[in-house]
């Protein structure tokens, strides 16, 4: 079966040096793919290239057999790729619920005029959106904080909220950039269970993470270092892969 996301020879230069070079990667429908690598390996750059926040120097990106290379972020999102950011970027002056509701911009395609005349259809749509948004909040376990302003949330819940927001565009592919970075223990559990539930709903996920617990969830793992792919395989295969060892610990045998 054809891959959901196909990345061919992706390359990005910053000035002289290559942040990503000749990266090939394909994500099958319904899997969780882990993108691993030491700091500065170029993981976030790969995300930015896929979602159109950066223009690749070379290479192509296909999503569902159609090329999305260098498309604008909002177009990529409309195609069905949701993402979170390494930092908990959100709408600080919206409540938690509004943060999620805002993300329903793409669905349903509500027209300017419908909104202006506040038609019955429009109101029904907004009602439906509201209930769906609550569902998503329940999924990540934020239903109780729904009326808190985004900026007043602690860091952990903020990260969960960004996940909920990305989920709200009903993505076929979800890119999570360090979804549990900076969370403390029970928040991590919350996040992991959320990710499992998302996956069980059949959403494909690519996630960047150092945390081994999270990596165990992954069906496949791609390891990159200095922008190049050094290994690919299941968690077990990767765990003792010499290249990975060198990349992480500088020598071949595990600590």
């Amino acid at each position, binding site marked *: 079966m054809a891959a959901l996301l196909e990345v061919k020879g992706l390359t990005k230069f910053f000035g002289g040096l290559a942040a990503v070079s000749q990266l090939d990667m394909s994500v099958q429908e319904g899997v969780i793919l882990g993108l691993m690598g030491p700091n500065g390996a170029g993981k976030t750059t790969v995300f930015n290239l896929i*979602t159109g*926040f950066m223009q690749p120097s070379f290479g192509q990106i296909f999503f569902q057999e159609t090329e999305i290379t260098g498309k*604008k*972020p*909002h177009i990529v*999102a*409309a195609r069905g790729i*949701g*993402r979170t*950011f390494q930092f908990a*970027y*959100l*709408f*600080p*002056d*919206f409540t938690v619920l*509004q943060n999620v*509701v*805002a*993300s329903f*911009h*793409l669905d349903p395609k*509500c027209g*300017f005029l*419908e*909104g*202006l*005349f*506040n038609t019955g259809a*429009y109101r029904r749509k*907004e009602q439906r959106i509201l209930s769906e948004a609550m569902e998503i909040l329940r999924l990540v376990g934020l239903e109780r904080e729904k009326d808190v302003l985004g900026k007043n949330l602690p860091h952990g819940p903020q990260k969960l909220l960004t996940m909920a*927001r*990305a989920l*709200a*565009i009903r993505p076929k592919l979800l890119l999570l950039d360090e979804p549990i970075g900076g969370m403390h223990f029970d928040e991590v559990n919350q996040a992991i269970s959320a990710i499992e539930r998302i996956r069980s709903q059949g959403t494909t996920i690519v996630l960047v993470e150092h945390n081994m617990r999270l990596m165990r969830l992954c069906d496949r793992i791609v390891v990159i270092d200095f922008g190049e792919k050094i290994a690919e395989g299941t968690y077990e295969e990767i765990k003792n892969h010499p290249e990975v060892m060198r990349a992480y610990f500088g020598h071949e045998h595990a600590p």
Partner: protein
Amino acid sequence: MNDREKGNGQVIGRYGVVAVVAAFLLLLPWLPKVGPYFLHVCILILTYIIATSSLRTIYVSGQASVGHAAFMGIGAYTSAILSMRLGWSPWLTILIGAAGTTIVATLSGYLFSRLRAIYFSMVTLFFGVAVEALMRSWVSLTGGRSGLVGFPGIGVLSVPGIGEINFAASKTPYYYLMLLLTFFTLLVLYRIERSRTGMNWMAIAQSPLVASSIGISETKFRMLAFGVGCFFAGLAGACYGHYSGVLSSSSFSLMPSIYLVIYMLLGGMSHFAGPVIGVVVLVAIPEIFRSLKEYAPFVFGVIMLLVIFLMPQGLAGLMQSGKVWYEKTFRRGAL
């Protein structure tokens, strides 16, 4: 139980207030001691309310424009020149003026949408002064510094049923026209802001990055906001032009633009009612202090300073905290 009663009471109270205000505004021209000059000031206030509220719409989408008066100018001059040169009816030319303004605004809005924050403010500032300089120097078209005169007023409108309304005879028809337009403007702007479009605008204002990650096109929605805002600016400008009967470029230069911003910020940008309050206060109070002659601007300045240092949320914010305080005491009374 008690609460529900109170709730009903408040609801009734709110509608009561609205009804009273509406009645007042509608009956204003017929009240005793309301002379033509009073109406003139009211018409001025209504014009500025339209302009300032539309400016706020642009700010809601995170675009701090400092050239709004220029767009009023474009509307005013377009309408005036068309009605003068081609002899078209002002009713038509006003609409054309507003439409023309929207086109200019949407195009420039598209170009400017690549700039954010201060850089956007700066480019709008330059656009404003450039337009004003153009109006000033293109004497053959705009009459230059001596101003454009001799274009028709709205004149006589015959409405089946009501009969003939002569706009030239008194200010009352103009007052009602502007009142209607203001109501229309506020209604439309309010609806848009409360609709998903408004939500997208606020989203972009808060974080363009996140907004684009959830599929909101920054360019499109910023253009939309700019277009909508400037449409009403053009409308206000065109109507005012035909009312005043003389246009001079100096009315659309940097300072008028800045005054619109002042009205808005002083009223309180975060509240929809902010611009309305700001304009009413800042236009009405200097009028009361006309007798101070060349010292009058001090009053303006003092009010500004008071608001800046005592009311961070602007006058509207003050109103709200006042309401909160009132409700607190009300509840205390009830218990």
